[in-house]
């Protein structure tokens, strides 16, 4: 499929972060590009892949505007500096206000985002329907399963349209069937609007490859003696559009996908 690079949606430049004297991130730089495909009006999914403990969630918090880096910048569309609230974030444990029902959690997101009450209710009803949550509208978060909570958390971030949605480990701890569902959900969310872009932070190589247009691999360098050098940065970029592995429903069965997965796994073990 022909695709051309559009504008830059996210520009992460030279992010450095140290905590307690230890280097966590050491010059992380990458860009998320808006790919324009002929005749297709869908969004995209980008993955930031890396082993556990490498600093992925720290980087996500910086990109979300929740934490400030020691050095570096994060800009969004039109070179705007990203602040908390300018991009959607779905955290790993799907925090929701436990004293509000599903419907009320979504409506609150709408009113906080500037919608009036009627607009927020309308948008909430639409999203409940889209995410198959209409029957759970009056439920409290404590009454939901993990999968339902995840859908509510995603829906909440979409009440007010946001072009970039960051997701922290959405595939973590899922059984194979649930994993398939979440992968489909991400693609569906990206496809809800042509401007929707999802950045998934994960350590799940196969799932990341299956849903993404581009995979960035975050990791640490190794010294000659094999020891890890503190401070992660982007070690590799896999352009799945160029490799013709993006936006294909059965991509996981393709030999090129399997070969690339093997290559990424080998690289992953060294980070």
């Amino acid at each position, binding site marked *: 499929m022909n695709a051309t690079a559009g504008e830059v949606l996210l520009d992460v430049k030279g992010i450095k972060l140290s905590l307690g004297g230890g280097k966590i991130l050491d010059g992380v730089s990458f860009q998320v590009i808006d790919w324009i495909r002929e005749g297709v009006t869908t969004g995209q999914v980008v993955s930031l892949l890396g082993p556990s403990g490498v600093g992925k969630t720290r980087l996500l918090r910086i990109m979300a505007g929740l934490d400030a880096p020691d050095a570096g910048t994060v800009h969004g569309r039109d070179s705007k500096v990203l602040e908390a*609230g300018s991009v959607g974030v779905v955290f790993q444990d799907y925090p929701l206000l436990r*004293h509000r029902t599903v419907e009320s959690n979504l409506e609150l997101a709408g009113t906080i985002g500037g919608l009036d009450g009627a607009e927020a209710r309308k948008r909430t009803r639409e999203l409940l329907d889209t995410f198959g949550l209409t029957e759970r509208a009056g439920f409290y978060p404590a009454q939901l399963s993990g999968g339902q909570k995840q859908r509510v958390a995603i829906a909440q971030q979409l009440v007010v349209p946001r072009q970039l949605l960051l997701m922290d480990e959405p595939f973590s701890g899922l059984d194979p069937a649930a994993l398939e569902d979440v992968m489909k959900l991400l693609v569906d969310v990206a496809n809800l609007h042509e401007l929707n872009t999802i950045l998934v932070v994960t350590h799940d190589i196969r799932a990341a490859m299956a849903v993404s247009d581009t995979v960035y691999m975050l990791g640490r360098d190794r010294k000659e003696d094999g020891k890890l050098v503190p401070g992660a940065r982007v070690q590799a970029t896999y352009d799945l559009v160029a490799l013709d592995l993006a936006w294909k429903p059965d991509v996981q069965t393709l030999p090129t996908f399997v070969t690339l997965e093997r290559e990424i796994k080998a690289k992953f073990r060294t980070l």
Partner: protein
Amino acid sequence: MSKLTRAFQPNRVIDSGTTGLIVLFWAGTALLLWSLSPWKTLPTPHEIWKAVGFLWWERGMGPEMFTTLKLIAHAVALTAVLSLGLSYLTVIPFFRPLVAMTSKLRFLGLTGLVFPFTLMTGGGYTLKVALLTFGMTSFFVTSMAQVVIEIPRAEFDHMRVLGSSEARIFWEVVVRGTLDKALDVLRQNLAMGWAMITMVEGISRAEGGVGAMILDQNKHFNLAEVYAILLVILVLGLAMDYGMGVLTNLLCPHAALGRVQR
């Protein structure tokens, strides 16, 4: 496994019917033991029941109860306002030492404070309200400030990424998000205040109340009347506790969902 057998197994969940049967069994056993008690200093249930009637009709127990309930309501209302205010202030670093200091005052104890409090308040009803409020506030603040401190950072971040202002975050996460816990803490402190009420009412008896009443009956060694008043204090305390539970369920229906039965 039969329902009754489960009642004797560790870590089992039993239904409300079985729970009711168990409660009835223990209440009946207690009543039987009480009736058959060989201790002469413990009046029989019948004697106590008669004493309740006597106190109610002859000694004006109704108005005395009202006086006590008014006192505890006043002190609890003041405690709730002061304690919640102080606890919520823990979100502002400047006030944290003040909150910590208030919490530490719980080690002072009430007895030694009667004198300075009398000088400050002039005694009487105001002294009693002040003592009860002080006693409950220092414990309330300790528990509630901990509740506020333990709110996970993720809850604040979640609101921030929605684009919420810090004032809205305070309202949703700190105030509304912990309301069920605040009511639970208030419930515990109400019990604590209620346990202190006879002692506090005894400090200044002029205004009456069941605390003054029990001391009066103590003085005359009217055992049945003393136990009758104790029973009334217990029943009123249990009724208030139940009322607090109902209020929590009404205001925070989500609270019960988080409790795990085992």
